[in-house]
Protein backbone atom coordinates (compact mmCIF):
# COMPACT_ATOMS: atom_id res chain seq x y z
CA UNK A 1 0.00 0.00 0.00
CA UNK A 2 1.40 3.40 -1.00
CA UNK A 3 0.13 6.90 -0.27
CA UNK A 4 -1.95 7.13 -3.45
CA UNK A 5 -3.61 3.81 -2.64
CA UNK A 6 -4.34 4.85 0.93
CA UNK A 7 -6.03 8.00 -0.39
CA UNK A 8 -8.04 5.86 -2.80
CA UNK A 9 -9.01 3.49 0.01
CA UNK A 10 -10.13 6.32 2.29
CA UNK A 11 -12.29 7.72 -0.52
CA UNK A 12 -13.76 4.25 -1.10
CA UNK A 13 -14.54 3.87 2.62
CA UNK A 14 -16.13 7.32 2.72
CA UNK A 15 -18.41 6.36 -0.18
CA UNK A 16 -19.27 2.98 1.34
CA UNK A 17 -20.01 4.37 4.81
CA UNK A 18 -22.25 6.97 3.21
CA UNK A 19 -24.04 4.28 1.20
CA UNK A 20 -24.51 2.10 4.32
CA UNK A 21 -25.42 4.98 6.62
CA UNK A 22 -29.07 4.00 7.12
CA UNK A 23 -28.14 0.36 7.69
CA UNK A 24 -25.66 1.36 10.43
CA UNK A 25 -28.20 3.73 12.01
CA UNK A 26 -30.70 0.87 12.07
CA UNK A 27 -28.20 -1.55 13.68
CA UNK A 28 -27.13 1.03 16.26
CA UNK A 29 -30.64 2.20 17.16
CA UNK A 30 -31.43 -1.12 18.86
CA UNK A 31 -29.31 -0.14 21.87
CA UNK A 32 -27.18 2.89 20.98
CA UNK A 33 -28.07 6.49 20.27
CA UNK A 34 -28.23 5.65 16.54
CA UNK A 35 -25.54 8.14 15.58
CA UNK A 36 -23.10 5.46 14.33
CA UNK A 37 -24.16 5.81 10.69
CA UNK A 38 -23.63 9.56 10.81
CA UNK A 39 -20.38 9.25 12.75
CA UNK A 40 -18.86 6.80 10.30
CA UNK A 41 -19.96 8.56 7.11
CA UNK A 42 -18.91 11.99 8.44
CA UNK A 43 -15.69 10.60 9.93
CA UNK A 44 -14.43 8.80 6.84
CA UNK A 45 -15.49 11.72 4.65
CA UNK A 46 -13.39 14.05 6.82
CA UNK A 47 -10.43 11.66 6.80
CA UNK A 48 -10.54 11.25 3.01
CA UNK A 49 -10.99 14.98 2.45
CA UNK A 50 -8.09 15.89 4.75
CA UNK A 51 -5.54 13.95 2.70
CA UNK A 52 -7.06 14.07 -0.80
CA UNK A 53 -4.88 16.97 -1.92
CA UNK A 54 -1.81 15.99 0.11
CA UNK A 55 1.49 15.33 -1.67
CA UNK A 56 2.89 13.39 1.31
CA UNK A 57 4.34 10.06 0.16
CA UNK A 58 4.94 8.63 3.65
CA UNK A 59 2.04 6.19 4.21
CA UNK A 60 2.38 6.56 7.97
CA UNK A 61 2.23 10.34 7.99
CA UNK A 62 -0.76 10.26 5.68
CA UNK A 63 -2.64 7.78 7.88
CA UNK A 64 -1.89 9.91 10.96
CA UNK A 65 -3.22 13.06 9.26
CA UNK A 66 -6.36 11.22 8.17
CA UNK A 67 -6.86 9.88 11.70
CA UNK A 68 -6.48 13.30 13.27
CA UNK A 69 -9.02 14.76 10.86
CA UNK A 70 -11.47 12.01 11.79
CA UNK A 71 -10.89 12.54 15.52
CA UNK A 72 -11.66 16.24 15.12
CA UNK A 73 -14.72 15.70 12.95
CA UNK A 74 -16.40 12.95 15.01
CA UNK A 75 -15.28 12.86 18.67
CA UNK A 76 -17.89 10.22 19.57
CA UNK A 77 -16.85 6.89 21.08
CA UNK A 78 -16.68 4.98 17.80
CA UNK A 79 -15.29 7.97 15.90
CA UNK A 80 -12.41 8.31 18.34
CA UNK A 81 -11.76 4.57 18.25
CA UNK A 82 -11.51 4.49 14.45
CA UNK A 83 -9.35 7.61 14.50
CA UNK A 84 -7.09 5.94 17.07
CA UNK A 85 -6.72 2.98 14.68
CA UNK A 86 -5.69 5.20 11.79
CA UNK A 87 -3.34 7.26 13.97
CA UNK A 88 -1.64 4.16 15.32
CA UNK A 89 -1.24 2.84 11.77
CA UNK A 90 0.38 6.21 11.11
CA UNK A 91 2.79 5.85 14.01
CA UNK A 92 3.74 2.26 13.14
CA UNK A 93 4.20 2.85 9.39
CA UNK A 94 5.92 6.22 9.66
CA UNK A 95 8.87 6.44 7.28
CA UNK A 96 7.49 3.88 4.80
CA UNK A 97 6.41 4.72 1.26
CA UNK A 98 5.15 1.19 0.67
CA UNK A 99 3.60 -0.77 3.53
CA UNK A 100 2.13 -4.26 3.70
CA UNK A 101 -1.68 -4.23 3.88
CA UNK A 102 -1.58 -6.72 6.77
CA UNK A 103 0.72 -4.42 8.79
CA UNK A 104 -1.58 -1.45 8.16
CA UNK A 105 -4.68 -3.27 9.40
CA UNK A 106 -2.86 -4.90 12.30
CA UNK A 107 -1.67 -1.46 13.50
CA UNK A 108 -5.25 -0.18 13.10
CA UNK A 109 -6.51 -3.07 15.22
CA UNK A 110 -3.85 -2.43 17.89
CA UNK A 111 -4.69 1.29 17.99
CA UNK A 112 -8.37 0.56 18.60
CA UNK A 113 -7.58 -2.09 21.18
CA UNK A 114 -5.19 0.16 23.12
CA UNK A 115 -7.69 3.02 23.16
CA UNK A 116 -10.82 1.02 23.98
CA UNK A 117 -9.20 -1.59 26.27
CA UNK A 118 -11.63 -4.28 25.11
CA UNK A 119 -10.59 -7.89 24.52
CA UNK A 120 -11.59 -10.14 21.60
CA UNK A 121 -14.80 -12.03 22.37
CA UNK A 122 -16.46 -9.08 24.11
CA UNK A 123 -18.70 -8.24 21.15
CA UNK A 124 -16.99 -5.20 19.69
CA UNK A 125 -15.29 -3.93 16.52
CA UNK A 126 -12.34 -6.15 17.46
CA UNK A 127 -14.37 -9.30 16.82
CA UNK A 128 -14.93 -8.32 13.20
CA UNK A 129 -11.41 -7.01 12.70
CA UNK A 130 -9.21 -9.66 14.35
CA UNK A 131 -10.12 -12.57 12.01
CA UNK A 132 -9.55 -10.24 9.05
CA UNK A 133 -6.09 -9.23 10.25
CA UNK A 134 -5.22 -12.86 10.87
CA UNK A 135 -6.47 -13.80 7.37
CA UNK A 136 -4.35 -11.11 5.71
CA UNK A 137 -1.30 -12.18 7.68
CA UNK A 138 -1.91 -15.78 6.55
CA UNK A 139 -1.85 -14.63 2.93
CA UNK A 140 -5.59 -14.67 2.15
CA UNK A 141 -6.78 -12.43 -0.68
CA UNK A 142 -8.65 -9.19 0.08
CA UNK A 143 -11.86 -10.79 -1.16
CA UNK A 144 -11.47 -13.86 1.09
CA UNK A 145 -10.60 -11.55 3.96
CA UNK A 146 -13.75 -9.49 3.44
CA UNK A 147 -15.87 -12.66 3.54
CA UNK A 148 -14.16 -13.77 6.76
CA UNK A 149 -14.80 -10.35 8.34
CA UNK A 150 -18.45 -10.49 7.31
CA UNK A 151 -18.95 -13.93 8.87
CA UNK A 152 -17.17 -12.72 11.98
CA UNK A 153 -19.60 -9.79 12.19
CA UNK A 154 -22.53 -12.22 11.86
CA UNK A 155 -20.86 -14.32 14.54
CA UNK A 156 -21.22 -11.52 17.08
CA UNK A 157 -24.82 -12.70 17.47
CA UNK A 158 -24.55 -15.05 20.42
CA UNK A 159 -21.73 -13.16 22.13
CA UNK A 160 -22.26 -11.49 25.49
CA UNK A 161 -21.63 -7.72 25.37
CA UNK A 162 -19.17 -6.35 27.94
CA UNK A 163 -18.94 -2.74 26.78
CA UNK A 164 -21.11 0.27 26.08
CA UNK A 165 -24.85 0.56 26.23
CA UNK A 166 -25.33 -2.97 24.93
CA UNK A 167 -23.72 -4.40 28.06
CA UNK A 168 -26.62 -3.00 30.13
CA UNK A 169 -28.81 -5.61 28.39
CA UNK A 170 -26.81 -8.42 29.98
CA UNK A 171 -27.78 -11.87 28.65
CA UNK A 172 -30.33 -10.30 26.28
CA UNK A 173 -27.41 -8.75 24.37
CA UNK A 174 -26.63 -12.18 22.91
CA UNK A 175 -29.56 -11.78 20.51
CA UNK A 176 -28.02 -8.71 18.89
CA UNK A 177 -25.49 -8.09 16.13
CA UNK A 178 -22.67 -5.76 17.10
CA UNK A 179 -22.64 -2.48 15.15
CA UNK A 180 -18.89 -2.02 15.80
CA UNK A 181 -18.13 -5.37 14.16
CA UNK A 182 -20.35 -4.24 11.30
CA UNK A 183 -17.98 -1.31 10.77
CA UNK A 184 -15.05 -3.75 10.66
CA UNK A 185 -16.90 -5.85 8.07
CA UNK A 186 -17.58 -2.73 6.00
CA UNK A 187 -13.93 -1.68 6.20
CA UNK A 188 -12.84 -5.01 4.76
CA UNK A 189 -15.62 -4.98 2.17
CA UNK A 190 -14.49 -1.53 0.99
CA UNK A 191 -10.88 -2.70 0.96
CA UNK A 192 -11.68 -5.78 -1.13
CA UNK A 193 -13.77 -3.76 -3.59
CA UNK A 194 -10.99 -1.18 -3.94
CA UNK A 195 -8.34 -3.84 -4.56
CA UNK A 196 -10.70 -5.65 -6.93
CA UNK A 197 -11.10 -2.55 -9.09
CA UNK A 198 -7.34 -1.99 -9.38
Amino acid at each position, binding site marked *: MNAAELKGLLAAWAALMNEKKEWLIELDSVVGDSDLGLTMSDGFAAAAEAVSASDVTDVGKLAYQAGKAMATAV*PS*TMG*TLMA*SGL*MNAGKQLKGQEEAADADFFEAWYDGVQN*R*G*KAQPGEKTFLDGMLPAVQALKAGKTPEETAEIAWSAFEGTKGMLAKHGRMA*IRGEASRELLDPGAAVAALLMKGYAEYRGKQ
Partner: protein
Amino acid sequence: MKKIINTPERFIPEMLEGIYAAHPDDLMCVNGDLHCLVTKHKQAGKVGIATGGGSGHLPLFLGYVGKGMLDGCSIGDVFQSPSAEQMLAVTKEIDQGAGVLYIYGNYNGDIFNFDMAAEMADMEEDIRVESVVAGEDVASAAPSAEGEPNKRRGVAGIFFVYKCAGAAAAEGRDLDQVKAAAEKACANVRTMGVALSSCTVPRVGHPSFEIGEDEMEIGMGIHGEPGIRRGKLKTADEMTDEMLEPILSDIPYKAGDEVAVLINGLGATPLEEQYVMFRRVKQILDGKGISIWHTYVGEFATSMEMAGASISLLRLDDELKGWLAAPVDTPFFKQFQL
Protein backbone atom coordinates in the same frame (compact mmCIF):
# COMPACT_ATOMS: atom_id res chain seq x y z
CA MET B 1 -40.15 20.66 22.63
CA LYS B 2 -40.49 23.97 24.45
CA LYS B 3 -37.17 25.79 24.86
CA ILE B 4 -35.65 29.24 24.58
CA ILE B 5 -33.56 28.52 21.48
CA ASN B 6 -33.20 29.89 17.97
CA THR B 7 -32.34 26.68 16.17
CA PRO B 8 -31.20 23.33 17.63
CA GLU B 9 -28.01 23.45 15.51
CA ARG B 10 -26.99 26.87 16.85
CA PHE B 11 -27.89 26.12 20.49
CA ILE B 12 -24.37 25.44 21.80
CA PRO B 13 -22.44 28.11 19.85
CA GLU B 14 -25.04 30.71 20.84
CA MET B 15 -24.93 29.62 24.49
CA LEU B 16 -21.13 29.99 24.37
CA GLU B 17 -21.33 33.41 22.70
CA GLY B 18 -23.59 34.47 25.55
CA ILE B 19 -21.19 33.17 28.20
CA TYR B 20 -18.14 34.93 26.74
CA ALA B 21 -20.14 38.13 26.32
CA ALA B 22 -21.36 38.01 29.92
CA HIS B 23 -17.94 37.36 31.49
CA PRO B 24 -15.42 39.19 29.30
CA ASP B 25 -13.03 39.89 32.18
CA ASP B 26 -12.83 36.26 33.29
CA LEU B 27 -13.11 33.94 30.30
CA MET B 28 -11.72 33.72 26.80
CA CYS B 29 -11.56 31.15 24.03
CA VAL B 30 -8.47 29.71 22.36
CA ASN B 31 -7.69 30.14 18.62
CA GLY B 32 -11.16 31.56 18.01
CA ASP B 33 -12.80 28.20 18.85
CA LEU B 34 -15.67 28.85 21.26
CA HIS B 35 -15.44 25.23 22.42
CA CYS B 36 -11.98 25.84 23.96
CA LEU B 37 -12.52 27.96 27.09
CA VAL B 38 -9.78 29.18 29.45
CA THR B 39 -9.52 31.55 32.39
CA LYS B 40 -8.05 35.01 31.94
CA HIS B 41 -6.61 34.87 35.47
CA LYS B 42 -3.36 32.97 35.08
CA GLN B 43 -1.31 32.18 38.18
CA ALA B 44 2.34 31.95 37.12
CA GLY B 45 4.00 28.56 37.54
CA LYS B 46 0.81 26.82 38.72
CA VAL B 47 -0.14 23.31 37.63
CA GLY B 48 -2.87 23.70 35.01
CA ILE B 49 -6.16 21.88 35.52
CA ALA B 50 -8.39 21.12 32.56
CA THR B 51 -11.75 19.47 32.33
CA GLY B 52 -14.22 18.90 29.53
CA GLY B 53 -17.28 17.03 28.42
CA GLY B 54 -20.58 17.37 26.68
CA SER B 55 -22.87 20.37 27.11
CA GLY B 56 -26.21 20.26 28.86
CA HIS B 57 -24.96 20.17 32.46
CA LEU B 58 -24.30 23.80 33.42
CA PRO B 59 -22.68 24.91 35.61
CA LEU B 60 -20.74 21.68 34.91
CA PHE B 61 -18.16 21.73 33.33
CA LEU B 62 -17.08 25.16 32.19
CA GLY B 63 -18.67 26.92 35.16
CA TYR B 64 -15.81 25.85 37.42
CA VAL B 65 -13.12 27.59 35.37
CA GLY B 66 -11.75 30.46 37.45
CA LYS B 67 -9.67 31.40 40.47
CA GLY B 68 -9.18 28.55 42.93
CA MET B 69 -10.62 25.83 40.69
CA LEU B 70 -9.94 25.05 37.01
CA ASP B 71 -7.92 26.74 34.26
CA GLY B 72 -9.60 25.48 31.13
CA CYS B 73 -12.44 23.43 29.69
CA SER B 74 -13.20 21.95 26.28
CA ILE B 75 -16.88 21.89 25.45
CA GLY B 76 -18.75 19.38 23.30
CA ASP B 77 -22.20 19.41 21.78
CA VAL B 78 -25.09 18.36 24.04
CA PHE B 79 -24.03 15.13 25.81
CA GLN B 80 -21.16 14.67 23.28
CA SER B 81 -17.46 14.70 24.05
CA PRO B 82 -15.36 17.55 22.67
CA SER B 83 -12.54 16.46 20.35
CA ALA B 84 -9.00 15.58 21.40
CA GLU B 85 -7.79 18.46 19.22
CA GLN B 86 -9.87 20.91 21.29
CA MET B 87 -8.62 19.40 24.54
CA LEU B 88 -5.07 19.78 23.24
CA ALA B 89 -5.64 23.45 22.39
CA VAL B 90 -6.82 24.09 25.98
CA THR B 91 -3.88 22.09 27.36
CA LYS B 92 -1.33 24.15 25.43
CA GLU B 93 -2.94 27.40 26.55
CA ILE B 94 -3.02 26.60 30.28
CA ASP B 95 0.35 24.85 30.62
CA GLN B 96 2.82 27.06 32.44
CA GLY B 97 5.65 24.58 32.58
CA ALA B 98 4.32 22.73 35.63
CA GLY B 99 2.23 20.25 33.65
CA VAL B 100 -1.51 19.78 33.31
CA LEU B 101 -4.01 17.61 35.17
CA TYR B 102 -7.15 16.39 33.39
CA ILE B 103 -10.17 15.81 35.62
CA TYR B 104 -13.30 14.51 33.91
CA GLY B 105 -16.18 12.09 34.29
CA ASN B 106 -16.05 8.37 33.65
CA TYR B 107 -17.61 8.12 30.17
CA ASN B 108 -16.04 6.24 27.22
CA GLY B 109 -16.20 9.11 24.73
CA ASP B 110 -14.49 11.49 27.15
CA ILE B 111 -11.89 8.91 28.23
CA PHE B 112 -10.90 8.07 24.65
CA ASN B 113 -10.57 11.72 23.68
CA PHE B 114 -8.72 12.84 26.80
CA ASP B 115 -6.32 9.89 26.46
CA MET B 116 -5.70 10.84 22.85
CA ALA B 117 -5.18 14.49 23.84
CA ALA B 118 -2.71 13.46 26.56
CA GLU B 119 -0.74 11.45 23.99
CA MET B 120 -0.72 14.40 21.58
CA ALA B 121 0.40 16.76 24.37
CA ASP B 122 3.28 14.42 25.14
CA MET B 123 4.26 13.62 21.53
CA GLU B 124 3.69 16.98 19.89
CA GLU B 125 4.13 19.55 22.66
CA ASP B 126 6.26 17.91 25.38
CA ILE B 127 3.67 18.81 28.01
CA ARG B 128 3.34 16.37 30.90
CA VAL B 129 -0.30 15.43 31.47
CA GLU B 130 -1.83 13.32 34.23
CA SER B 131 -5.49 12.28 34.41
CA VAL B 132 -8.00 11.62 37.16
CA VAL B 133 -11.32 10.12 36.09
CA ALA B 134 -14.18 10.78 38.49
CA GLY B 135 -16.77 8.02 38.88
CA GLU B 136 -18.77 8.16 42.11
CA ASP B 137 -22.38 7.34 41.20
CA VAL B 138 -23.07 4.36 43.47
CA ALA B 139 -26.17 3.47 41.44
CA SER B 140 -24.26 2.95 38.21
CA ALA B 141 -22.14 -0.09 39.10
CA ALA B 142 -20.81 -2.15 41.98
CA PRO B 143 -17.56 -0.93 43.53
CA SER B 144 -14.61 -2.13 41.43
CA ALA B 145 -12.36 -4.86 42.74
CA GLU B 146 -8.68 -4.11 43.39
CA GLY B 147 -6.91 -3.60 40.07
CA GLU B 148 -10.17 -3.50 38.09
CA PRO B 149 -11.22 -0.32 36.25
CA ASN B 150 -13.90 1.77 37.96
CA LYS B 151 -17.17 1.36 36.05
CA ARG B 152 -19.13 4.02 37.89
CA ARG B 153 -20.36 7.12 36.12
CA GLY B 154 -19.09 10.53 37.13
CA VAL B 155 -21.83 12.90 38.29
CA ALA B 156 -22.21 15.89 40.65
CA GLY B 157 -19.54 14.71 43.10
CA ILE B 158 -16.89 15.81 40.60
CA PHE B 159 -17.48 19.28 42.06
CA PHE B 160 -15.58 18.20 45.19
CA VAL B 161 -12.76 16.78 43.06
CA TYR B 162 -12.40 20.09 41.22
CA LYS B 163 -12.56 21.98 44.50
CA CYS B 164 -9.82 20.00 46.25
CA ALA B 165 -7.48 19.75 43.26
CA GLY B 166 -8.04 23.43 42.45
CA ALA B 167 -7.12 24.46 45.98
CA ALA B 168 -4.04 22.22 46.00
CA ALA B 169 -2.88 23.72 42.69
CA ALA B 170 -3.49 27.27 43.93
CA GLU B 171 -1.31 26.49 46.96
CA GLY B 172 1.54 25.89 44.51
CA ARG B 173 1.74 22.11 44.82
CA ASP B 174 3.31 20.10 41.99
CA LEU B 175 1.50 17.93 39.44
CA ASP B 176 1.83 14.69 41.40
CA GLN B 177 0.51 16.34 44.56
CA VAL B 178 -2.43 17.97 42.75
CA LYS B 179 -3.25 14.62 41.18
CA ALA B 180 -3.09 12.99 44.62
CA ALA B 181 -5.50 15.64 45.97
CA ALA B 182 -7.96 14.87 43.17
CA GLU B 183 -7.64 11.14 43.79
CA LYS B 184 -8.18 11.60 47.51
CA ALA B 185 -11.41 13.51 46.84
CA CYS B 186 -12.51 10.78 44.40
CA ALA B 187 -11.85 8.10 47.00
CA ASN B 188 -14.05 9.85 49.56
CA VAL B 189 -17.01 11.09 47.52
CA ARG B 190 -20.18 9.16 46.68
CA THR B 191 -23.34 10.26 44.88
CA MET B 192 -26.85 8.96 44.22
CA GLY B 193 -29.56 10.62 42.17
CA VAL B 194 -33.27 10.43 41.46
CA ALA B 195 -35.06 11.51 38.28
CA LEU B 196 -38.71 12.58 38.09
CA SER B 197 -38.88 13.68 34.46
CA SER B 198 -36.78 13.51 31.30
CA CYS B 199 -34.65 16.09 29.53
CA THR B 200 -34.90 16.81 25.82
CA VAL B 201 -31.80 17.08 23.63
CA PRO B 202 -32.55 19.99 21.22
CA ARG B 203 -31.34 18.21 18.09
CA VAL B 204 -33.41 15.14 18.98
CA GLY B 205 -36.53 17.15 19.75
CA HIS B 206 -38.35 14.70 22.03
CA PRO B 207 -37.75 13.56 25.62
CA SER B 208 -34.80 11.15 26.06
CA PHE B 209 -36.98 8.66 27.93
CA GLU B 210 -40.58 8.14 29.03
CA ILE B 211 -41.49 8.30 32.68
CA GLY B 212 -45.04 8.40 34.08
CA GLU B 213 -46.51 11.43 35.89
CA ASP B 214 -46.57 9.39 39.10
CA GLU B 215 -43.19 7.67 38.68
CA MET B 216 -39.61 8.25 39.72
CA GLU B 217 -36.37 6.48 38.88
CA ILE B 218 -33.84 6.04 41.66
CA GLY B 219 -30.21 6.08 40.53
CA MET B 220 -30.71 7.47 37.05
CA GLY B 221 -27.65 9.05 35.39
CA ILE B 222 -27.35 12.63 34.17
CA HIS B 223 -27.90 11.62 30.55
CA GLY B 224 -30.90 9.47 31.40
CA GLU B 225 -28.94 6.25 31.87
CA PRO B 226 -30.97 3.55 33.63
CA GLY B 227 -31.00 3.62 37.42
CA ILE B 228 -31.58 0.96 40.03
CA ARG B 229 -35.33 1.02 40.33
CA ARG B 230 -38.32 2.61 38.61
CA GLY B 231 -41.31 3.00 40.90
CA LYS B 232 -44.21 5.07 42.14
CA LEU B 233 -43.28 8.54 43.35
CA LYS B 234 -42.60 8.50 47.08
CA THR B 235 -42.39 11.23 49.71
CA ALA B 236 -39.24 13.34 49.92
CA ASP B 237 -38.19 11.57 53.13
CA GLU B 238 -38.68 8.07 51.68
CA MET B 239 -36.81 9.05 48.52
CA THR B 240 -33.94 10.53 50.53
CA ASP B 241 -33.74 7.44 52.75
CA GLU B 242 -33.48 5.22 49.68
CA MET B 243 -30.76 7.42 48.14
CA LEU B 244 -28.63 7.94 51.23
CA GLU B 245 -28.48 4.33 52.39
CA PRO B 246 -26.27 3.05 49.51
CA ILE B 247 -24.01 6.11 49.85
CA LEU B 248 -23.44 5.48 53.55
CA SER B 249 -22.84 1.76 53.10
CA ASP B 250 -20.40 2.14 50.20
CA ILE B 251 -17.48 3.41 52.28
CA PRO B 252 -17.12 2.77 55.99
CA TYR B 253 -18.61 5.54 58.12
CA LYS B 254 -18.47 5.73 61.90
CA ALA B 255 -19.90 8.04 64.53
CA GLY B 256 -17.79 11.18 64.78
CA ASP B 257 -16.98 11.34 61.06
CA GLU B 258 -17.32 14.68 59.34
CA VAL B 259 -18.76 15.20 55.85
CA ALA B 260 -19.56 17.86 53.30
CA VAL B 261 -23.00 17.48 51.72
CA LEU B 262 -23.92 18.51 48.20
CA ILE B 263 -27.60 18.60 47.26
CA ASN B 264 -27.76 19.08 43.50
CA GLY B 265 -30.81 20.00 41.46
CA LEU B 266 -30.92 18.37 38.00
CA GLY B 267 -32.38 21.42 36.27
CA ALA B 268 -36.14 21.61 36.86
CA THR B 269 -36.31 20.96 40.60
CA PRO B 270 -36.68 24.11 42.72
CA LEU B 271 -34.40 24.95 45.63
CA GLU B 272 -37.39 24.58 47.96
CA GLU B 273 -37.57 20.86 47.19
CA GLN B 274 -33.82 20.51 47.51
CA TYR B 275 -33.93 21.95 51.02
CA VAL B 276 -36.73 19.54 51.95
CA MET B 277 -34.37 16.79 50.85
CA PHE B 278 -31.44 18.26 52.80
CA ARG B 279 -33.58 18.41 55.95
CA ARG B 280 -33.95 14.64 55.82
CA VAL B 281 -30.22 14.11 55.06
CA LYS B 282 -29.41 16.09 58.22
CA GLN B 283 -31.81 13.99 60.30
CA ILE B 284 -30.28 10.73 59.07
CA LEU B 285 -26.68 11.86 59.56
CA ASP B 286 -27.52 13.21 63.04
CA GLY B 287 -28.95 9.81 63.87
CA LYS B 288 -25.66 8.15 62.93
CA GLY B 289 -23.47 10.67 64.74
CA ILE B 290 -21.98 11.96 61.47
CA SER B 291 -21.51 15.71 61.58
CA ILE B 292 -21.94 18.02 58.62
CA TRP B 293 -18.95 20.35 58.26
CA HIS B 294 -20.32 22.25 55.26
CA THR B 295 -23.39 22.10 53.02
CA TYR B 296 -23.88 23.10 49.39
CA VAL B 297 -27.43 23.26 47.98
CA GLY B 298 -28.24 24.30 44.42
CA GLU B 299 -27.50 23.42 40.81
CA PHE B 300 -23.99 22.03 40.37
CA ALA B 301 -24.39 19.39 37.64
CA THR B 302 -27.66 19.44 35.73
CA SER B 303 -29.27 17.49 32.94
CA MET B 304 -30.97 20.41 31.17
CA GLU B 305 -34.66 20.43 32.14
CA MET B 306 -34.67 17.10 33.95
CA ALA B 307 -36.52 17.16 37.26
CA GLY B 308 -34.84 15.40 40.14
CA ALA B 309 -31.86 15.77 42.41
CA SER B 310 -28.74 14.05 43.63
CA ILE B 311 -27.06 13.77 46.99
CA SER B 312 -23.26 13.68 47.29
CA LEU B 313 -21.29 13.10 50.47
CA LEU B 314 -17.59 13.83 50.83
CA ARG B 315 -16.01 12.18 53.84
CA LEU B 316 -13.53 14.64 55.33
CA ASP B 317 -10.23 14.79 57.11
CA ASP B 318 -8.20 17.90 57.97
CA GLU B 319 -6.44 17.99 54.61
CA LEU B 320 -9.68 17.77 52.61
CA LYS B 321 -11.29 20.37 54.89
CA GLY B 322 -8.42 22.74 54.17
CA TRP B 323 -8.90 22.40 50.41
CA LEU B 324 -12.67 22.66 50.67
CA ALA B 325 -12.35 25.84 52.74
CA ALA B 326 -10.17 27.70 50.22
CA PRO B 327 -11.77 30.62 48.37
CA VAL B 328 -13.08 30.32 44.80
CA ASP B 329 -14.13 32.91 42.26
CA THR B 330 -15.54 31.74 38.94
CA PRO B 331 -18.40 33.29 36.96
CA PHE B 332 -20.68 30.44 38.07
CA PHE B 333 -19.45 29.62 41.58
CA LYS B 334 -18.04 31.83 44.31
CA GLN B 335 -17.00 30.99 47.85
CA PHE B 336 -15.30 33.01 50.57
CA GLN B 337 -12.70 31.31 52.77
CA LEU B 338 -14.68 28.98 55.05
